[in-house]
């Protein structure tokens, strides 16, 4: 390393990233399509679209609508099922030269561990992100991520059965956020990601209907950043394990805000959808900020929030 270079590496206690920029699940596909715009291997890692054991058809349209500075989506985790996902992407994944994080969701608590075991057997990857917080698939009206005991059982089973590096992606939609985070931590989750989209609705005054086919969806984009950051702040203060910041990151400054609050890394979501260069621009912007302010490494700003 020469004197001018900035150390952007992030130690996620068991997984080392070359830089803090990851892509959020569902906004980056498997990364392939973004190769048209830039070499995705410059990023710290990619988090793939969530998979389930069996194929999911997805929710009825309209699945997406725009609200002021935000996007509501209710895709419903459309995916071909774990086996087919592995088969379709194995070759592409073997070419990826950055961290590969597979996002996993289950219809039952047990399904998470089953998918992780299948992934471990058939694919080379660096970590799983357990999506316990999708607002668009629920059992009995509640996502697993709203129940600390449920999250604890899911994480424990995955760790026990596979030993893979686990990131648990938390829901913002519970007054128990700290408790859920601590449950994941005590069950052996290596890191947390905070947080998922915020449940939302949008009403069309011409038709009196929701703009989303599934009536409600999850809000993302710049609109949610201050709320997501507050929840992130609560979570990062409640656990010892690394927490990845997600929610409304559009610029390097947004990402740095999370890092200053203590984020071990960040995930870029909706911004990838409307600016295909977003993740790379954010990475470049973080480096530029550090350089301009005479920092030598990301560690010098991480968690330095002074209240």
């Amino acid at each position: 390393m020469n004197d001018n270079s900035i150390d952007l590496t992030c130690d996620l206690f068991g997984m080392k990233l070359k830089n803090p920029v990851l892509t959020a699940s569902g906004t980056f596909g498997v990364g392939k399509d973004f190769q048209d715009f830039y070499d995705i291997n410059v990023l710290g890692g990619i988090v793939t679209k969530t998979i389930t054991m069996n194929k999911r058809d997805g929710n009825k349209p309209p699945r997406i609508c725009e609200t002021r500075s935000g996007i509501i989506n209710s895709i419903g985790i459309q995916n071909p099922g774990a086996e087919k996902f592995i088969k379709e992407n194995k070759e592409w994944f073997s070419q990826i030269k950055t961290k590969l994080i597979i996002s996993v969701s289950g219809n039952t608590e047990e399904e998470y561990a089953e998918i992780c075991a299948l992934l471990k057997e058939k694919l080379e990857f660096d970590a799983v992100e357990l999506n316990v917080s999708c607002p668009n698939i629920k059992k009995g009206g509640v996502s697993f991520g709203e129940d600390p005991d449920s999250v604890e059982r899911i994480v424990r089973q995955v760790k026990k059965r596979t030993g893979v590096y686990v990131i648990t992606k938390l829901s913002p939609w519970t007054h128990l956020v700290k408790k859920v985070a601590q449950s994941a931590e005590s069950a052996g989750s290596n890191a947390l990601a905070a947080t998922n989209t915020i449940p939302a609705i949008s009403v069309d005054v011409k038709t009196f209907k929701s703009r989303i086919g599934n009536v409600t969806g999850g809000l993302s984009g710049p609109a949610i950043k201050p709320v997501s950051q507050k929840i992130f702040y609560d979570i990062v203060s409640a656990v010892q394990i690394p927490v990845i910041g997600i929610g409304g990151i559009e610029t390097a400054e947004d990402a740095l805000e999370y890092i200053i609050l203590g984020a071990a890394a960040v995930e870029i979501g909706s911004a990838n959808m409307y600016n295909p260069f977003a993740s790379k621009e954010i990475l470049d912007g973080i480096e530029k900020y550090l350089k301009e302010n005479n920092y030598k490494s990301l560690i010098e700003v991480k968690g330095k929030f002074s209240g």
Partner: protein
Amino acid sequence: MKCSERKIIGNEKLGKDYYLLKYESQFSEKSIVPGQFISISLNSEAMVLRRPFSIFDVNSNVVSVFYKKVGKGTCILAEKKKGELINVLEVLGKGFSFYDKDRSLAVVSGGIGVAPLYFLAKRLRSMEKDVFIYLGARTELELFFEDDLKKMGCSVCVTTDDGSKNICGTVCCGLEPDCEKNNFDRIYACGPKPMLKAVAGVADKANILCEVSMEEVMGCGFGVCLGCAVKIKTKETNPIYKMVCKDGPVFDSQEIDWE
């Protein structure tokens, strides 16, 4: 697929709420298939999503987009001036298909649906096909490009919902009686969903192959967010969804579940 700042070389108002935007593209006429689209960033803090637009015409590297001012997004676009830059993601989607053996083709347009069909007609005429255009609009004031299409050598049948010009009724009133007479090998259509459904019905009845250009609210524009789902016909109990941005926007009309 490329995404960059492109220079506007015109944004002409063609009628109340109707505009023709022209910009310098990174793509050339030969590399674009009629029916494909582009997506424009409004560079707005409130409206984050890009707006997709059909490619209306391409002359060397100048892409034209015919659009109607309907919402806040298109209002912003209408204010853009010649010389300004716009961020364009191009070229997206799967366009119309072409077959050597086809001779006689119907091109059916409803309202702003003419947007991808002008370029289609131009391409078909360059292949020396017989092109019959069914140009439907609500009123005469919302009817565009009739003369240009005629100059191209297309036969044009105009229908208006209010009867302010030519046949009073929907495009199908013009199309249906011609199906047998003109011996169409294929129908291409673009317009509002109820119109496309009706055209698909006419095509089925006359046993003519039909391609439709569909529209849905779009997220990314290139198949990663799975937002712009359209329901596909299936015999299975589970629904099948395809993406307008990547699998389409052009679909075989028999593939679509019109509900």
